[in-house]
């Protein structure tokens, strides 16, 4: 492996393409940007050392076409491909195709990606690393089986409340929460009958019931020499349909012991996977129980990576490029000092008043306040086009301050001062969310936004 990359193909677009170009600028690496017909004149296209037009606007024939990406890298003499996030970033086939053509893939190998990306395999690895995975039982067909299964859960460290759920369906039919072990028999019978009537299949399974969940994730960086470091955790519980609306770090009000356990679990998992590169390990934190279970691994740089960059001072994309060249991480775990608090919001070109309908178009006005600790990652400017062909992320605003309250306050000031016209954005919703007493008191749970705030 070389000890530095000479020329990187950036196989992405929008703000993350600019972010990668920036890291390449810092590392002194030449850049080639793979562009679709829609992006030939983007800011990133202007800033890359050169561009290759790989296909039409449709992503299937451009940013999602593995052969075209690899061909573009070969045609332009690139020694590496950075996939960004989304698109092909977690497709092991791209990592494989790069390897076959002696191109460095900036990310884990195809094999590691397969192990990390497959939920079942990742859970097995996590279990092996001693990380709780909050498993569900096998389908239960009788009261006796159910009683036995619950007893086993409680014997092996599980705790109430647990939940019975219908194997065949959802929507609350055949569902029952067990708060007292003595209830299991009666609850099984009722739910079993309900499931039989509703779905013609009375089988149920037992699963941990989490009334109040938080989405907490840990930023990992690992090099090819076996070193794995974390940059602390992030909380992304403010979600709508699994889309993150507000991200922040470190995860607020997490008991120190729990936070340390989660971070060390993430590092152990990455070590167990033989992980190389930047990645995120996602956990569900059970607020009532005060514990956590493993959810999944994201084997890529994430949209919200700047949150961890702001609090750690470490440039995650530069580290990705170093690691891809075979270099060790530029820091050790002891060097990682988390300073203050950072909040990120995604400005999406969507209309929150019309069910988050995407609003592509030309941005006619774009002005955002500048300030210390205010970072804006974006391709937007007055006159910039939000293409209908791709996702609706226009900008990320990250605010960093000594405390969570100050960071949130700063974000509110930035969003209030934003002057954007030509597209509708999610800012009004984000502003309203940031200003709720619930969010300010924080942390909220994953159901808060949809079930309490938006429903109310």
């Amino acid at each position, binding site marked *: 492996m070389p000890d530095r990359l000479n020329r990187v193909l950036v196989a992405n677009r929008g703000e993350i393409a600019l972010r990668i170009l920036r890291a390449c600028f810092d590392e002194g690496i030449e850049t080639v940007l793979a562009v679709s017909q829609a992006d030939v004149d983007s800011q990133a296209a202007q800033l890359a050392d050169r561009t290759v037009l790989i*296909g039409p606007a449709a992503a299937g024939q*451009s940013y999602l076409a593995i*052969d075209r990406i690899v061909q573009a890298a070969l045609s332009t003499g690139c020694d590496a491909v950075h996939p960004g996030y989304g698109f092909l970033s977690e497709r092991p086939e791209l990592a494989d195709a790069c390897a076959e053509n002696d191109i460095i893939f900036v990310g884990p190998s195809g094999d590691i990606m397969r192990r990390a990306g497959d939920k079942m395999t990742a859970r097995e690895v996590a279990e092996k690393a001693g990380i709780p995975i909050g498993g569900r039982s096998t389908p239960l067909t009788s009261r006796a089986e159910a009683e036995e299964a619950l007893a086993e859960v409680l014997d092996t460290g599980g705790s109430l409340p647990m939940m019975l759920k219908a194997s065949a369906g959802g929507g609350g039919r055949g569902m029952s929460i067990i708060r007292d072990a003595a209830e299991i028999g009666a609850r099984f019978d009722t739910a079993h009958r309900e499931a039989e009537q509703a779905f013609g299949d009375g089988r149920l399974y037992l699963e941990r019931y989490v009334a109040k969940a938080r989405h907490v994730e840990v930023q990992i960086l690992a090099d090819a020499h076996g070193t794995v470091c974390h940059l602390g955790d992030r909380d992304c519980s403010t979600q709508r349909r699994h889309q993150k609306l507000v991200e922040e770090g470190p995860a607020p009000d997490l008991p120190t012991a729990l936070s340390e356990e989660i971070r060390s679990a993430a590092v152990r998992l990455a070590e167990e996977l033989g992980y190389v590169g930047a990645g995120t390990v996602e956990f569900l934190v059970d607020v009532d129980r005060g514990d956590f279970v493993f959810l999944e691994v994201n084997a890529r740089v994430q949209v919200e990576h700047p949150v961890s960059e702001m609090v750690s001072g470490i440039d995650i994309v530069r580290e990705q490029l170093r690691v891809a060249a075979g270099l060790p991480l530029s820091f050790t775990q002891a060097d990682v000092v988390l300073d203050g608090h950072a909040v990120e919001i995604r400005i999406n070109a969507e209309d929150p008043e019309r069910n988050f309908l995407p609003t592509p178009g030309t941005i006619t006005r774009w002005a955002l306040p500048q300030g210390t600790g205010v970072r804006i990652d974006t391709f937007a400017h007055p006159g910039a086009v939000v293409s209908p062909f791709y996702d609706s992320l226009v900008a990320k605003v990250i605010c960093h301050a000594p405390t969570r309250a100050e960071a949130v306050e700063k974000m509110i000031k930035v969003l209030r001062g934003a002057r954007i016209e030509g597209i509708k954005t999610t800012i009004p919703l984000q502003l309203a969310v940031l200003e709720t007493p619930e969010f300010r008191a924080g942390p909220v749970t994953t159901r808060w936004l949809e079930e309490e705030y938006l429903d109310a």
Partner: protein
Amino acid sequence: MPLTPDDIGRVLDALDKSSWDQAEIVVDDVRIAVGRNDLPAPGAAGAVAVANAPALAAPAPAPAAAAPAPAVAPAAPAHAAPAEPQPQDTPSADDHVLTAPSVGVFWRSPSPGAPPFVEVGSTVAVGDTIGIVEVMKLMNNVVADVAGTVTAVFPANAEHVEFGTPLVAIRPDA
């Protein structure tokens, strides 16, 4: 070179004596807009697109690319120079141009050493292969969608092409 007030006065005089009901004059930062006989003065500023006034065929410059080679490549591409320039039958603007369907490598013949699919002067029918664009060992035949005579073959054999790179020009049969 902004207009002086005197200049503006002269322009206004000219307009005043004219028969126009609406007018707009923009010189650098100066914009004069007038209207009369119930017609408002032309609307102002802000818009980026320039209206196409078909009557005068104002050559409204498209922001991006009407040109054949749509790649934006600030650095000179290493492979841009055609190795073997083809004799050209001076293709005209009316000729039909077939372009690359993908980034890839352009092959003029079905296999090394074989004669090229087409040369300048070849006649082609609809569906005839005129070349191949290879993407990672996948061979994409590029076929003529008009019948006619080849007036140009743009890339050299084995040249790297991008999506939309012109490959051949065909003068359609009359």
